[in-house]
């Protein structure tokens, strides 16, 4: 069923009785052309683009819980393409372009909202680093603006300009950045993929792989064996666990990242602001809650919950940046398990096991990548060649030394 003004009117007049499930709750078939493991945003987007761009429709997305129950529903909803390095920036800019047409592509309002993102700088060295980044963005065809202190003040006069420990000197703005409604992205991709014939199989956990020699030819699951010509993993923080079942050790650690939302308020923050003198980023949802976050807790974890020191650090940074938020209340905090790669950048590549493909290493930036991640992974699965914007995301780059280390902190995932 297409969503249209007419369908809304009709259902409004008939007591909302005519709606159908947004996607079928499919049972697994014995075999598919492609199985995507992981029913988060990346997995569902992959299935959608495989079906819509490559004409492969005999696909299952299998998910151990319900779709969107992992990081897709636990992030701070920020979209942006303000990366630095040539391995990353064209990919994220492609993602941004896909965001810009997403709702029409999916016939689903994911509330993609380009109200801008502003990264603040507090020193000359940081300004230079942001200039380098802003110029790199321009080279990749993205938009960027370097603002001085007064430029920032004009956008957000309520930031602490007068008494700050690390005075705001300016910011790098990307006006096309913003937010999207994270759950709606999941639901939109699921619904659109389903309409193209993709089976979305929930409560179906991978317990092993079916091999023929070196090759992977399917998965064992809690709902039985399912064969496939190709299996793609898009399981974020569970990557190491699932890959281990195929005998692979990954350049990856799983870490917990906390996120926070405040009580609903009348509009305070229009776009996304990130603090440059601490770990803090904030935006305001359309419902009115301030959505914010900070650094990962910094230790390996699969527990989907973090601890107070990071909560305090986030609040200290928030108060240092915006001292008017002191009386606002934190409503909910939660944790997601991040697939922290060893250089802080993702992997979209074939694996040493023929038939098994990997999409992982999103660190805590996976949400914004959702469309391009799906696009590039679909391209790889369909053609066995990397998409032009994702050629650097190789699994063997750690062996060859072609690292994509945006932060320059080296092989220490908790610092990326």
């Amino acid at each position: 069923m297409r969503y249209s003004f007419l369908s809304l009117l009709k259902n409004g007049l008939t007591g909302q009785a005519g709606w159908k499930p947004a996607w079928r709750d499919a049972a697994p078939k014995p075999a598919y052309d492609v199985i995507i493991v992981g029913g988060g945003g990346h997995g569902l987007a992959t299935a959608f683009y495989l079906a819509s761009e490559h004409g492969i429709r005999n696909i299952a997305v299998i998910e151990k819980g319900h779709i969107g129950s992992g990081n897709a529903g636990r992030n701070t909803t920020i979209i942006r393409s303000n990366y630095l390095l040539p391995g990353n920036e064209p990919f994220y800019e492609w993602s941004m372009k896909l965001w810009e047409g997403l709702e029409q592509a999916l016939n689903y309002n994911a509330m993609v909202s380009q109200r801008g993102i502003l990264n603040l700088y507090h020193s000359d060295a940081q300004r230079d680093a942001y200039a380098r980044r802003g110029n790199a963005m321009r080279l990749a065809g993205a938009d960027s603006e370097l603002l001085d202190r007064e430029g920032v003040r004009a956008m957000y006069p309520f930031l602490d300009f007068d008494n700050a420990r690390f005075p705001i000197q300016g910011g790098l703005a990307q006006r096309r950045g913003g937010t999207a409604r994270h759950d709606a992205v999941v639901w939109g991709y699921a619904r659109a993929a389903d309409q193209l014939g993709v089976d979305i199989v929930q409560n179906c956990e991978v317990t092993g792989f079916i091999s023929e020699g070196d090759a992977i030819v399917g998965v064992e699951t809690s709902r039985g064996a399912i064969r496939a010509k190709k299996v793609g993993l898009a399981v974020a923080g569970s990557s190491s666990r699932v890959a281990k079942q195929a005998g692979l050790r990954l350049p990856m650690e799983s870490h917990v990242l906390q996120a926070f939302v405040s009580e609903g308020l009348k509009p305070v923050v229009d776009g996304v602001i990130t603090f440059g003198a601490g770990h803090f980023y904030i935006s305001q949802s359309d419902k009115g809650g301030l959505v914010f976050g900070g650094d990962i807790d910094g230790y390996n974890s699969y527990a989907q919950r973090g601890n107070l020191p990071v909560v305090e650090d986030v609040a200290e940074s928030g108060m240092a940046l915006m001292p008017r938020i002191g009386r606002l209340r934190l409503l909910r905090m939660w944790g997601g398990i991040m697939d922290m790669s060893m250089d802080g950048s993702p992997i979209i590549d074939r694996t040493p096991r023929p038939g098994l493909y990997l999409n992982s290493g999103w660190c805590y930036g996976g949400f914004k990548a959702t469309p391009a991640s799906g696009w590039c992974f679909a391209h790889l699965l369909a053609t066995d060649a990397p998409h032009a914007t994702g050629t650097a995301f190789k699994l063997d780059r750690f062996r060859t030394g072609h690292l994509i280390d945006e932060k320059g902190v080296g092989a220490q995932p908790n610092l990326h």
Partner: protein
Amino acid sequence: MRIPCPYCGARDASEFAYLGDATLTRPDPAAPDAADAFHDYVYLRDNPAGAHSEWWYHSGGCRRWLKVTRDTTSHAIAGAELAGGAK
């Protein structure tokens, strides 16, 4: 999360710096396969869900590296010992 430092006693994890997997051994740099061995050492991780042996540096306390055994699913800490034994 409070880490039982063998010297200082239980301390909040925030006064430690985390390094990660403590089961790894720096390979022999003179070995013929050193390039591969160092790749594995520096980049590959078991990343287990469950018991994890990991390095924490007590930067805010005794400045010793501790080998901590912690469950990554519950954060429960089974124990901690000083690296290299006490001097």
